[in-house]
């Protein structure tokens, strides 16, 4: 029987700009693959500008494991290969063609397919990249056998996608994707759902746990920590529900169809709503509904752990929403002492805490300068894992690997530290510190 876990620690940041639940289908002229989305992957190009590609055509491969390829999300022509500093491969832009064509694969999925064959199919189609592992949040190693596979159909981040709403419309594909995960994961597939979700009761082959509580109650790390924490040496795989739907489609129909449903949201969006499009879509597809009168912060993902992109940027491989908020790059006279009825804050020094359900317009201003880590006991209020966040952050800053291991670095991802980073009065870049800590240990282990 499924159980409900009540998460008490955390905080819901209520923002203006929640997407209305009407879904519009939209065609985008451009999509992109961004190699920087894949932590630890050293990309090698497989295409040139002008090449024709189909959905599922390999675009890049991992230098350290050539079996791992990233494929095109759409069919069309490679329009540009954009590089950044030190020739860092940033974007492979694909101009969509007419019609939609997918690569065909010689391996056919059947419910009794051999695990190795299934892995081969996922690797060839590029969908393997959707399966990531903990610790380190990197693409899973096909040679490993995970202890469990976790799926969270609950996103509690600000303005986040309503996953049960999206899954409900592709329930058969999702079920088939879960069936495939069951083959991959030694039958241990665990699904986390919001406590009030009833749409997905019919799902089979999955161990369901319901979660109740504020953000980050939907995070994978929280689900793992509350059910069966990761120990040193153990590996957990996880995947996003929309990626599981894409895997399910490949299993059912034999072709790569990267159709996803995403909210385009935030206070700078005139009519925030859901769109059905494909992976890697360009934000200029939505220009009509975005308010461009002031400077905007365009975010692929949510406001806490998403990636800053340009106004012509693209949706990241693992991200499932676009958020647009004001940049907020202006001075505020005596802003630090104002009563602050209009400021989203966890601190009770602002009057806004008296109106817990009021929605706020938040901008990307830092609201202060960088200071020493001083305040204690606050992170613990929004950090539901059985881990000492402050001590772990300090171990990462000190690059003390033993302490990092002992304090539970294997159980966390940078997104788990997004709320501590939000509330930190010292304005420390905590997610970055944790990512560097994870990268350091990963390199040491190689």
């Amino acid at each position: 029987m499924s159980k409900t876990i009540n998460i008490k620690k955390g905080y819901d940041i209520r923002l203006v700009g929640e997407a209305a639940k009407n879904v519009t289908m939209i065609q985008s002229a451009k999509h992109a693959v961004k190699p920087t989305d894949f932590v630890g992957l050293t990309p090698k190009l497989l295409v040139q500008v002008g090449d024709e590609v189909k959905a599922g055509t390999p675009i890049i491969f991992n230098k350290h494991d050539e079996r791992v390829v990233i494929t095109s999300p759409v069919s069309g022509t490679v329009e540009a290969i954009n590089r950044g500093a030190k020739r860092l491969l940033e974007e492979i832009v694909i101009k969509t063609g007419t019609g939609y064509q997918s690569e065909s694969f010689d391996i056919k999925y059947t419910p009794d397919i051999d695990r190795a064959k299934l892995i081969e199919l996922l690797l060839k189609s590029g969908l393997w990249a959707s399966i990531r592992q903990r610790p380190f949040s990197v693409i899973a190693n096909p040679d490993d056998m995970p202890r469990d596979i976790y799926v969270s159909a609950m996103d509690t981040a600000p303005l986040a996608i309503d996953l049960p709403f999206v899954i409900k419309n592709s329930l058969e594909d999702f079920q088939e994707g879960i069936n495939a995960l069951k083959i991959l994961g030694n039958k241990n597939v665990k699904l986390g759902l919001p406590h009030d979700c009833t749409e997905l009761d019919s799902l089979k082959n999955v161990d369901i746990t319901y979660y109740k509580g504020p953000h980050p109650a939907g995070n994978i790390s929280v689900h793992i920590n509350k059910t069966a924490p990761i120990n040193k040496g153990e590996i957990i795989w996880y995947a996003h529900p929309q990626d599981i739907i894409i895997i399910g489609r490949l299993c059912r129909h034999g072709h790569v169809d990267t159709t996803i449903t995403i909210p385009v949201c935030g206070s700078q969006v005139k009519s925030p709503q859901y769109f059905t499009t494909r992976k890697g879509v360009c934000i200029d597809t939505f220009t009509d509904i975005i308010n461009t009168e002031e400077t905007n912060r365009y975010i692929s993902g949510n406001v806490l752990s998403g990636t800053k992109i340009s106004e012509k940027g693209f949706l990241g491989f693992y991200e499932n929403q676009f958020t647009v908020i004001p940049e907020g790059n202006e001075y505020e006279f005596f802003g630090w002492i104002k009563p602050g009825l209009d400021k989203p804050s966890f601190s009770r020094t602002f009057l806004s805490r008296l109106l817990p359900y009021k929605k706020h317009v938040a901008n990307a201003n830092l609201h202060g300068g960088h200071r020493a880590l001083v305040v204690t006991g606050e992170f613990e209020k929004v950090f539901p894992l059985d881990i000492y966040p402050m001590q772990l952050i300090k171990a990462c800053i000190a690059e003390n690997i033993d302490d990092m291991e002992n304090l539970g670095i294997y159980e966390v991802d940078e997104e788990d530290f997004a709320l501590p980073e939000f509330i930190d009065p010292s304005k420390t870049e905590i997610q970055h510190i944790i990512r560097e800590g994870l990268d350091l240990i990963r390199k040491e282990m190689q």
Partner: protein
Amino acid sequence: MKSLRKYIDKIKPKFSPGGKFEKFEYTFDAFETFLFVPNKTTFKGSHIRDGVDLKRTMSFVIIALIPALLFGIWNTGYQHNLAFGLDTGFWSNVWYGLGKILPLIIVSYVCGLGVEFIFAQIRKHEVNEGFLVSGMLIPLIMPADVPLWMVGIATIFAVIIGKEAFGGTGMNIFNPALLARAFVFFAYPSKISGDIVWVGGLGKATTVADGFTGATPLSFAASGKIELLPTINELFIGALPGSIGETSKIAIILGAIFLLITGIGCWRIMLSALLGGVAMSLIFNAFAANAYMTLDPLTQILMGSFLFGIVFMATDPVTAAQTNKGKWIYGFLIGIFAILIRVVNPAYPEGTMMAILLMNAFAPLIDHYVVQANIRKRLKRIKK
């Protein structure tokens, strides 16, 4: 405000690297960010940030100290006028108090912030706001008659040796304000102990009003004259000789309520220290070997700087225990030691300062064992 902003933007290049006054870059930054929250935006991690920053956090502690400060100003004048049989009218008290306390505050801030600005410039970092609170605490825990130069030296000592030597704000082991008091206590004991230092002008007086001794409740208790102790009401109101900010429990409790409502002060430490103080008083009551030991817990808690210490000093997030379990232990032991030291050790009439400094030293150890318990749990899981 636009014209002010324009003016700042105009002079800013002079204080930037390469400018005429580049040596004052971080000093300028401190003043600029005092007037305007910077236009800096996030570029890594969370795109939105809480409106709270250290300036706000620290200034809220100062707001919490205002009742104690205002009462201290009035009481300094009141005690002086009482001692000399002068008019104890409200404004007469306030003017005398202001004359004594404002210079102390100015000296404390000028010396402390001066050192902070110099270190920020040398180390090339923005000025941390930590001293805003210390600078106010230092005058409030001094006797009214303490010489200004002594406060200046004590402040400089506390900031350099107590804070900057450890790496600056956030790295210090001991509470800087308490270090300043400890410095005066050990370097110039005659200026901070005895009966005559607590009332302005008493040290140089030749004649005082009949019956006025200047003795604090603690000195009555320490000398066994508990029959002379003020009543509970008098202790609460605090129109008594003592350190400037510590006498009025009502003012301190108002500050504590403000800190608890705004979430700035740690309720765990305050409550556990209070419990520790009560526990130790009850233990003494059980033995009752002398008059001091027979004092009831309420009187013990209302005497001296116990409440001031546990509300404003023990809760300093940098020097207190950092884990929640650790905070319970840390606070409780402060309560225990504060009463223990004051009753048992004749050398230190006020145990709170010593108890907090002692526990400052042990806070990292307490945290270590709390964190080790979490680590053991994780290691145990692997063995299974």
